[in-house]
Each structure stands twice: as structure tokens, then as C-alpha cells.
């Protein structure tokens, strides 16, 4: 397996293939800036929870670096992992349903209370029909991710994978370390 592109997103920086990209904002405002500057044609971004926003943008930047948007097909897997899962959105949802006198559970917040939705958002954006997996791990574990990628590659259709760690324990606190790997 070989890595073709890598991206790292923190609240204060975006590094693509070792190059720091120039942005002015920080925290969640940085994510909006990245979206407006580098994506701009997927308004569903604004409806996503923080975990999906971070994973989605990391994927967008990797695919931008790759050049070929790789639309459609079943030859690419999405394999992500994180420690906190959807905890940030879970808290938002809990707040919405905490007051019995103001009980209006938002369906659009509820749908993100599953962490694997981030893999679906990436697959939907690109029309991918390959394998998608999300693993809750104690810590970033490249060896475990490599093992999951090896497992995905046992399917002869799968030629490459978008793989990595996306962690969003709370609002304004996020980290993504993702890469494209090929057989």
C-alpha cells in the first residue's frame, strides 16, 4: 500500500501534502472559510455536524490534491476512526430534548448522532458505492487503520481508500489526519 496524499486539519491550521494552506480564520470559522474558498458548491455542508464538516473538508482537500474527482464507482473505500465519535452532536441533541416544556427534537441534529454518517457524507458527495467503515478507537492507531485498509483491499473491486482519524470532542475542538492510500 502507498499513500498518495495527506491532509491534517486543526482549529488553527490546514496542511495538505506537507504544505500549510493560507487561511485567516480559526476554530469552526476556519472550516467555513475552507469550504467557501476551496469547495463552495455543496450547501449541505452547512447542515452537517462538526464531525462530518471536518471529515468532508479533509476529503475535499485530498481529492483536490489528487486532481481526478473520482466520481462514482465502487473501487474506493472510506475508512475513518475517532475517539469521541458523535459526542459533540449527541450533546447538541441532548440540549434540544432536555426541557419537557420546550421539547422539539430536531431531525437534522438527530441524524448526525451516529459517527459513521461522516463516511456517508463523503461517499454521497462523490457518488461512491464502495465500502465505508467507521471505527471508534481509544487513540489514533495507524497500524489498526492499515489493517482495516488491508481488509478492505481483500475485495478485488477496492483499489484505493480514503483513510484516517477524525476527532471532534467539542465545538471548536477538532482534528483530522486523513490520507488517500492505494493498493
Amino acid at each position, binding site marked *: 500500500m502507498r499513500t498518495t496524499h495527506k491532509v491534517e486539519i486543526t482549529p488553527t491550521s490546514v496542511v495538505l501534502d506537507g504544505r500549510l494552506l493560507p487561511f485567516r480564520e480559526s476554530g469552526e470559522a476556519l472550516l467555513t472559510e475552507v469550504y467557501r474558498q476551496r469547495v463552495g458548491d455543496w*450547501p449541505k455542508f*452547512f*447542515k452537517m455536524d462538526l464531525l462530518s464538516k471536518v471529515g468532508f473538508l479533509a476529503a475535499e482537500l485530498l481529492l483536490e490534491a489528487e486532481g481526478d474527482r473520482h466520481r462514482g464507482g465502487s473501487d474506493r473505500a472510506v475508512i475513518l476512526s475517532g475517539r469521541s465519535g458523535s459526542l459533540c452532536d449527541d450533546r447538541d441533541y441532548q440540549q434540544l430534548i432536555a426541557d419537557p416544556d420546550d421539547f422539539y427534537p430536531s431531525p*437534522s441534529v438527530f*441524524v448526525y448522532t451516529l459517527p459513521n454518517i461522516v463516511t456517508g457524507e463523503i461517499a454521497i458527495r462523490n457518488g461512491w458505492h464502495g465500502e465505508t467503515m467507521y471505527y471508534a478507537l481509544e487513540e489514533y492507531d495507524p497500524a489498526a487503520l492499515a489493517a482495516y485498509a488491508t481488509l478492505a483491499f481483500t475485495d478485488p473491486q477496492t483499489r484505493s481508500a480514503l483513510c484516517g482519524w477524525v476527532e471532534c470532542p467539542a465545538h471548536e475542538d477538532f482534528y483530522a489526519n486523513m490520507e488517500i492510500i492505494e493498493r
Partner: protein
Amino acid sequence: MEELIAQLKGKIIEALNLVDLTPEDIDADAPLFGEGLGLDSIDALELILLMEKNYGIRLKNPAEGKEVFKSVRVMAEYIAAHRTK
């Protein structure tokens, strides 16, 4: 009615996170689903919630939504006729 339509447009933008739209961008007679604003099934559920929360209207039959959510104007007319708050 025009006042309610204007208010409703603002509430739809807020509830559905249509960040790049202003009330002026929304044609009151354009379809909300399919073409027009291009909303999806989760958005439909949010609109049901919006009507209940803001206007005290509970759609008992979800199939009613297909008619009620035809456009902002149709929605406003339904709200004017059935609102309890």
C-alpha cells in the same frame, strides 16, 4: 399574508441552515422540494417541526405535507388557516 410569507421565509432559512440564502432569494411560489430550494426528506421533517413549534400546528398525517409544502405561499396559507399560536 405577505407579512406571514416574509416571516416564514426567515424561519425556513434559520431552521434549514440555508446559510447562503436571504428571504429575497426565495420565490414564494416556487416548489420547495425537487427543484426550487431542493430540500430533502430531513428538511421536510424540520418543516413539520417548524410549524408545530412556531404556529402550534401538528400535521397528523405526514402525507398532508406533500400538499402543504408545495411552496412558501401554500404553506403560509395553511398556517393562517390552522395556527393555534
